C-alpha cells in the first residue's frame, strides 16, 4: 500500500482518542504569531504557545522549511501539554505544502495516525508516553477508516516500538493498516513520498529528486531493491582494493580545533579514516515497516540499536561530521563500519567482509584517536572507542542518553558568567572553568550534571550545537538529564547567589513535605520556565512557592512570605533549578505578624 500520493488526514494520537487536524490556515504574517484553536472556535488549544514556538524561527522547524511564519491550526479536540503532537503537526505542514493535507471538508484518501516529539535542532523523533492507551483509544476510529476503504498509516517513535500493543497492532495490521517506527522525521516523509526541505528552502520536493534513499523507514520492498542494485553491478566489475584517506584538510582541522578546545586533547592531524574500493552485495536493509501480522514490531533494545543509520541522529559529534556521514559514509561501498569517540568519527569502507570492516573501524579509532590532556577533566568513557554502525545498521553500546526537554535556557535570568559563582563546584573546578571555559572561544556552552561535574563545548558552529553536544555527553555519562548553566559569556540558568547550592531540585528531594504538596510545588515550578523560582519550607514542612519573579531576591522573599502564611520558621530550600541551603543573612524570616 502506497502513501506517496493522494490527500491524507492527520490524526494526532492522544489518550482521549485521535485528535484530527481539521484546518491549517496561512494567516497574514504581519500578525506575527501562530495560534492553535479547537474546532474553528475562539477556544485556544493548550498547545497554542508551544505550537507558535514550533513554527517560528529560531526555535521552530516550520518557518525555515516552508517559508511562512504565521499559521492557524485547528484541531478537533484538546491536546494536553506535552510534545507528542509535534511529529503529526510537522507532517501536516509538509502535506499542506504539497497540497495533500485533507482538511475539514476534504475527502481523504488515507489516514496518518501519528505520535512523536520532534527535536528542533536535528528533527530527531523522540519517544512519548502512553502509546498503548493512545492506540487503544483510536482503534474504533481507525477501523472505521479502514472500513471506508481508506489506507491507514501508523507512525510511532522507535523508542516506543516496544510499547505498541501487540493485540491492537495485530488487529489493525490484519485489516490492512501499516505501521512504521521512526527515530527521525525524514524517514516518515520518504514513506509519504516527500523529502522534507532543508531549513530556509521553500517546500518539499518529490522523492524522485531526493539525493538520499530512505535510511530508516521503508514502506515497500521495491524502492529498497532499487537502491541496492547499483552496488551489485559495481561489485561485478571492480576488484577489492582498500584505500585509506588522511583527512588533514582544513575542514577536518576545524573539527579538531573545536574538539581540542573542548577537551584539552592535544591536536593531531587525523580525524577521519576512510577505506574505499569494491562493493560486495549490500546486506538486506532492515525495514521498520510492518504490514503483516506475521511481521511483529521489533523493539529497539537498547535504544537505537538495530535501526538504520540516520546521520542527523548520531549523538555527541559535530553537525559537520554528521554531514560527512551523510555525504561520504552512506554512499561508500560495502563492507563498511563507523566507529567513534564522543568527539571524532572514523570509518572504513570497501572491505571484504562486515567483520573485517567492523574490526578495521575500531582499530582506526583506537590508533588515531586523540588522547586527553591531564587538565581536560575528560573521563575514560568519553574517549573510549565505540562501534557506532556496522554497515548502515546502528550497533552502538552508547545508549540511554538522558536529554532535558526544551527550552534548554532561561533567557530571562541571563547575566554575565562568573567562574567563581559556578554552582555545585569546588574551588578547583571553578579555577578549571575559568581556564577552560571563560577563555575559550565561541560558540560555547557549559553544562553541569547532578553530581556537579561540568561538561564544556567550545568553538562550535552555534550555541545550539554547543549545548546539544555538552548535554549529550553529560546525559550519557551521568545517566541523568543535565542543566545548561552558561552559553557563551552568560549564565542562562537561575544560578543562586543568596544561598549555597547543594544539588539539583527534584520533587522527591523535599523531604518531609506531603506527597500532594510536593507534587503541587513541582507542578508550579514546571509550569513556568522563565524568571526566578524559589521554594521555602517551614518547621512543619509546609511549602511556600514563588515562580516567575524578576529577581532572585524577590523570588526568595516571595517564597518566604508565602510559606509564612502556612507555617513558621521558614527556610529557603529551592532557588531556580537548585536545592539550596539557606545562609542565615541571606534569607530573612518574615515578621511573626504575617504568619
Amino acid at each position, binding site marked *: 500500500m502506497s502513501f506517496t500520493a493522494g490527500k491524507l488526514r492527520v490524526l494526532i494520537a492522544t489518550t482521549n482518542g485521535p485528535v484530527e487536524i481539521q484546518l491549517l490556515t496561512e494567516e497574514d504574517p504581519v*500578525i506575527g504569531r501562530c*495560534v492553535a484553536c479547537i474546532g474553528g472556535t475562539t477556544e485556544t488549544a493548550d498547545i497554542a504557545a508551544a505550537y507558535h514556538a514550533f513554527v517560528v524561527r529560531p526555535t521552530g522547524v516550520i518557518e525555515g522549511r516552508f517559508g511562512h511564519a504565521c499559521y492557524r491550526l485547528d484541531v478537533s479536540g484538546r491536546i494536553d501539554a506535552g510534545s507528542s503532537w509535534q511529529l503529526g503537526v510537522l507532517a501536516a505542514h509538509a502535506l499542506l505544502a504539497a497540497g495533500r493535507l485533507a482538511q475539514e471538508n476534504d475527502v481523504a484518501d488515507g489516514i496518518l495516525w501519528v505520535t512523536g516529539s520532534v527535536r528542533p535542532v536535528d528533527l530527531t523523533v523522540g519517544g512519548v508516553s502512553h502509546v498503548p492507551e493512545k492506540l487503544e483509544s483510536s482503534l474504533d476510529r481507525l477501523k472505521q477508516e479502514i472500513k471506508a476503504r481508506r489506507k491507514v498509516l501508523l507512525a510511532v517513535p522507535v523508542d516506543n516500538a516496544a510499547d505498541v500493543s501487540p493485540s491492537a497492532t495485530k488487529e489493525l495490521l490484519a485489516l490492512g493498516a501499516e505501521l512504521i517506527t521512526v527515530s527521525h522525521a525524514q524517514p516518515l516523509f520518504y514513506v509519504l513520498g516527500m523529502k522534507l526541505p532543508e531549513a530556509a528552502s521553500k517546500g518539499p520536493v518529490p522523492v524522485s529528486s531526493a539525493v538520499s534513499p530512505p535510511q530508516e523507514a521503508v514502506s515497500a520492498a521495491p524502492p529498497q531493491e532499487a537502491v541496492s542494485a547499483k552496488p551489485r553491478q559495481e561489485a561485478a566489475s571492480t576488484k577489492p582494493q582498500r584505500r585509506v584517506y588522511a583527512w588533514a584538510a582544513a575542514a577536518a582541522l576545524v573539527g579538531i580545533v573545536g574538539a581540542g578546545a573542548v577537551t584539552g586533547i592535544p591536536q593531531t592531524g587525523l580525524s577521519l579514516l576512510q577505506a574505499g574500493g569494491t562493493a560486495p552485495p549490500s546486506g538486506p536493509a532492515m525495514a521498520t515497516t510492518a504490514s503483516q501480522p506475521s511481521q511483529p514490531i521489533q523493539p529497539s533494545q537498547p535504544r537505537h540499536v538495530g535501526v538504520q543509520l540516520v546521520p542527523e541522529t548520531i549523538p555527541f559529534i559535530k553537525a559537520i561530521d554528521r554531514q560527512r556521514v551523510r555525504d561520504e559514509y552512506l554512499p561508500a561501498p560495502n563492507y563498511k563500519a563507523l566507529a567513534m569517540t564522543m568527539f571524532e568519527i572514523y570509518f572504513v569502507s570497501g572491505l571484504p567482509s562486515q567483520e573485517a570492516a567492523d574490526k578495521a573501524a575500531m582499530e582506526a579509532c583506537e590508533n588515531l584517536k586523540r588522547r586527553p590532556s591531564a587538565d581536560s577533566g575528560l573521563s575514560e568513557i568519553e574517549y573510549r572507542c565505540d562501534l557506532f554502525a556496522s554497515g548502515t545498521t546502528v550497533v552502538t553500546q552508547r545508549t540511554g542518553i538522558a536529554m532535558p526537554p526544551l527550552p534548554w535556557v532561561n533567557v530571562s535570568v541571563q547575566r554575565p558568567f562568573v567562574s567563581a559563582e559556578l554552582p555545585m563546584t569546588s574551588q578547583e573546578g571553578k579555577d578549571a572553568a575559568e581556564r577552560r571555559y571563560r577563555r575559550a572561544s565561541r560558540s560555547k556552552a557549559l553544562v553541569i550534571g547532578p553530581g556537579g561535574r561540568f561538561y564544556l563545548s567550545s568553538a562550535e558552529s552555534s550555541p545550539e550545537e554547543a549545548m546539544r553536544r555538552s548535554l549529550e555527553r553529560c546525559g550519557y555519562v551521568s545517566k541523568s538529564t543535565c542543566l545548561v548553566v552558561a552559553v557563551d559569556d552568560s549564565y542562562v540558568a537561575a544560578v543562586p547567589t543568596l544561598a549555597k547550592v547543594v544539588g539539583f531540585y527534584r520533587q522527591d528531594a523535599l523531604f518531609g513535605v506531603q506527597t500532594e504538596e510536593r507534587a503541587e510545588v513541582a507542578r508550579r515550578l514546571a509550569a513556568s520556565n522563565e524568571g526566578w523560582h524559589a521554594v521555602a519550607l517551614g518547621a512543619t514542612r509546609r511549602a511556600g512557592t514563588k515562580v516567575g*519573579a524578576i529577581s532572585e531576591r524577590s523570588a526568595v522573599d516571595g517564597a518566604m512570605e508565602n510559606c509564612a502564611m502556612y507555617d513558621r520558621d521558614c527556610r529557603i530550600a529551592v532557588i531556580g533549578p537548585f536545592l539550596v541551603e539557606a545562609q542565615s543573612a541571606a534569607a530573612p524570616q518574615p515578621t511573626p505578624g504575617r504568619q
Partner: protein
Amino acid sequence: MTTETENDFAHRADQLYAARSALADTKRPQRRFGIAEIVQFLNDPSRSLTSEEQRALFADPRLRADYRRLKAQATTFEMPALAAASSGNVNARRFDGGSITIHPSRIPGQLYVILRFNWPANSPRAMLLEGAAGDLVKRALPSADQQGEVMMVLDENNDADAGFLRLLSDPTSTGTFVV
C-alpha cells in the same frame, strides 16, 4: 393609679412587640457596593462588575476615588487614550510597557488580539478598559509566553468579546493592566 400604670406598660409592651415583629419581618437590606467588592474585582481576574455595580461605582464620587486609589496599587501599566487627532476605530495601541494589536482572522467573524509586554516575567493577569462614557470591561489575560506575548482569539458575535473589542478599538478609551 396602679391600674392606669399597669395599662400603660401593657400598651407600650404591645407597641414594642409590634415594632420588633415588623422589623424582623422586613427584608435585610442588600449589601451595597463598597470597598470589599472593589478589592475583589481588582484581585480576582474572573470577577466582573454587573451593570448595577458599575452604576453604583460611577454614581458615588468617594467610591470612585477609592476605586482609583486601589486600582493604582494593583496596576502594572496604563494604556492612555489616543491623541485627539485619532478618529474612528484603531487596531493598534501602545502603552509604556508594551503594545496591543488587533488583526482579522481568516476565520470569518474572528479576530486576534495580541498583547506584547516588554517585561515577560511579570506580565499582568487582567486588563481593565474604561470608555469615555464610564463603561468598564475587564478581561482576564492568559499568561504571557517567554517573549512576553499573549494572544487571544475573539469572536465579534460574542457579546463579551464584542464589548471588549469595542472599547479596545475606541481611541478615547483608557486601559489598565493589573497583576
